[in-house]
């Protein structure tokens, strides 16, 4: 087994709220894994238990081949060889950048700290105090501090959510580069699917205290295991359908279908798979357009009141609110039993 982190059956409740309900996760060495889920789904709780900051009600955490958390064992956080980057950065305000990064190293051994600072491109700022840094710089120091003691795994808890949108993409790429450059294994928690899709090697989608599906961004997008996963990764339109005679029939017409499902089904149509053509005779009408530059999201209401989202490529000036359109399936549709 090459898994550096193994989590089995974590359970945790806070009063009446179930935070974790059978949470499993395997992270191979060198993997950059995103834990994606809506807020309140238990992501942060899972991370804190892995770090040893909280004790679960049940379940196990293995770091390397060492049992770190179980019913009987709770290795304290300082003995786990796990690094962590907090949402707030949590830099020590009374220590300068170098002292922050060297905090986890034995005294007098600052060399790794300087090396990591170079990796995050903060050389020259060693003696700044945290409050003299920009938000992006602070978060890079936090990453450097977590990496300096060369931990087995680095955990990042929504590390970019406190940064403004303009900075976020740049820092994200930087952090990925640094983590990859250090061959680090990392788990980072996020509720932002764009963030997860853009920097993770693999994504674990979770909701209601458990992991629903693990896969590469492409796998999750193209083959979601359930409608719930599809909703959390990419989103899209869900239509009622009916399978018979090798076709699935929906409000958009019938398309060939070769799956095992029969009878009443739900059909997932991603926005980019929904084609729109102006047609004065159609009863479907454009109700709104969100323009994004490289493409746009067009909101359509069908005759029966169903609302759909379509994402045609390029600038489509022919689609303005009020336009009557014909909607059609232009790409793959996924079918789920109802």
């Amino acid at each position, binding site marked *: 087994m090459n898994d550096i982190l193994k989590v089995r059956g974590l359970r945790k409740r806070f009063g009446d709220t179930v935070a974790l309900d059978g949470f499993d996760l395997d992270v191979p060495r060198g993997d950059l894994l995103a834990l994606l*889920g*809506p807020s309140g789904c238990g992501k942060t709780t899972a991370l804190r238990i892995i770090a040893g900051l*909280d004790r679960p009600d049940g379940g196990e955490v293995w770091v390397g081949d060492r049992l770190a958390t179980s019913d009987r064992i709770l290795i304290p956080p*300082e*003995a786990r060889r796990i690094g962590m980057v907090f949402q707030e950065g949590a830099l020590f305000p*009374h220590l300068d950048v170098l002292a922050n990064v060297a905090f986890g190293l034995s005294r007098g051994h600052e060399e790794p700290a300087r090396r990591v600072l170079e990796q995050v491109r903060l050389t020259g700022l060693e003696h700044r105090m945290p409050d003299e840094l920009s938000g992006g710089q602070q978060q890079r120091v936090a990453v450097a501090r977590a990496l300096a003691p060369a931990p087995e795994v680095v955990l990042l808890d929504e590390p970019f959510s406190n940064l403004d949108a303009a900075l976020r993409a740049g820092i994200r790429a930087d952090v990925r580069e640094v983590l990859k450059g250090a061959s680090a294994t990392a788990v980072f928690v996020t509720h932002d699917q764009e963030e997860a899709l853009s920097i993770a090697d693999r994504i674990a989608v979770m909701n209601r205290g458990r992991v629903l599906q693990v896969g590469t961004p492409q796998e999750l997008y193209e083959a979601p295991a359930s409608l*719930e996963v599809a909703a959390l990764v990419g989103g899209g*339109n*869900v239509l009622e359908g009916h399978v018979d005679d090798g076709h699935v029939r929906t409000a958009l017409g019938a398309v060939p279908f070769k799956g095992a499902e029969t009878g009443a089904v739900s059909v997932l149509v991603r926005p980019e798979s929904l084609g729109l053509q102006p047609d004065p005779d159609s009863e479907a009408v454009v109700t709104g357009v969100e323009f994004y530059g490289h493409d746009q999201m067009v909101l359509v209401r069908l005759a029966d009141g169903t609302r759909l989202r379509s994402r045609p490529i390029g600038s489509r000036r022919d689609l303005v609110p009020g336009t009557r359109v014909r909607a059609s399936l232009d790409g793959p549709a996924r079918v789920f039993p109802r």
Partner: protein
Amino acid sequence: MSGSIATPIGKAIRSPRAVRPPLGLATAALAVCGVLALPVVYLVARSAQADAAAWDLILRSRTVLLAARSLGLAAAVTAGAVAIGLPLAWLTVRTDLPLRRFWSVLAPLPLVVPSYVGAFIVLSALGPDGLALRLLGPLGVERLPTITGFSGAWLTLTLFTYPYVYLLAAAALRGQDAALEETAWSLGRSRWSTFRNVTLPLLRPAIAAGGLLVALYALHDFGAVSLLRFQTFTQAIYLQYRAAFDRSPAAILSLMLLAVALVVLALERRARGRARLHRLGPGARRRLTVVPLGRWRWPGVAFCALVALLAVGMPVAVLAYWLMRTSTLDIDLGALAGMAGGSLMTASLGATVVLILALPVAVLGARFPGRLTTATERLAFSGYALPGIVVALAFVFAGAGLPLVYQTLPLLLLAYAVLFLPQASEPIRSALLQVPPRLEEAGRILGRTRTAVFRRVVLPQAARGLAAGFALVFLTVMKELPATLLLRPTGFETLATGVWTESSVGRFGDASIPALLLVTLSALPLYLVARRFETQEVRAE
């Protein structure tokens, strides 16, 4: 199910993490609580041994009258202190009062004057043969209203305790969110109605907390009531202790005073409502609007000037007068240096001991909420109810059986710890609360043990709060009289005991120099304490 699906939003989890405190910390906190409970346990044991004769003595002596006098004085002083402190806070914080900054610097100063110094100042200024008569004599004034008894005790205690109310109310006023008042205005409330229905209720916890400090100070006071000959509980306890061979009546009276103080404590808890003791929430607030006083500004200035004249001007004038009257040849510099050294030593050692003992209780309170924590905090807080004279007597009784420690410095320091621990644990706890727990977790994850993280991360950041706690205890020990008087090693003098010895026999001239020194040396710690409230202003803006 049809239509587009959006990301479902789960229920956010926000609940305090109940973590069991480390064994060492819990043990330390419990041990400290044990020390706090020591005098009470001893007094109870002692009272239980009382025979019929002792009870008879208690019942015959005017116990009920004493209780009524003590409570009446405490209530009147509290009312007076609120009547001075609250308007002063509002005027200096919220209005365009002329010389605002000047008045706000003067306002906390009377806190350096201990009650027995205050009494001697009031006596020699307004007494039968006092300065005021000498000044007013040529104008035909031949006598002033009598100053001994209730009126003098009330005036003295009010003048030199109102800063407790002032400081807490001013901090709470600075911390108030401007948006709340503005909302009330926008809902059509007048300025006065807004003040009564929004501003004042929000100040209630601060007023209650300040009032509590004043009430307990008055209830516990020994020096001023003795010098001004107003017989209260504390004085009766002292006389009983001095006069009788059997000490159990003194122990019973002590427990009664303690019970009265606990009632006051409970009253404050109720008055405070559910709000926490003067802790300000985080978050950005807008600068409060300045209230224009208009034609009320001159009455406002007159009020501030009158308070300053009585509470700052009078002490300075009296001390200066006596200083000028004293020939430099009469000053025993050696004895004076000894007293000053004694004061500085007991104050710094006392503050250090209190700080060390308060730390486990404060850490427990700030980081490990739970049943044990609630219990230790309650107990530490009820320490406020312990009068100095009562603790001193308990230690005298206990110490008499332990000749090795009786009348030694360690026993005195322990008495200070029992008396002043609640004062220190509150600022330390709020300083610790301001260090985000994330920082501690970050330190742990980087491989440091709990203790190492506490030392390297938490303590440096809580340093200012610790300094404030230290300064507060330092100031209080400097001023403390009864415990020092009864428990000090033989021949050991502090400025407080020096002032007391001279002024209790009417030698005000000889008392004035140590008094002046005492007040001057207290100014620095007072500055640090007052600064703590000022910095909350910075944070609030």
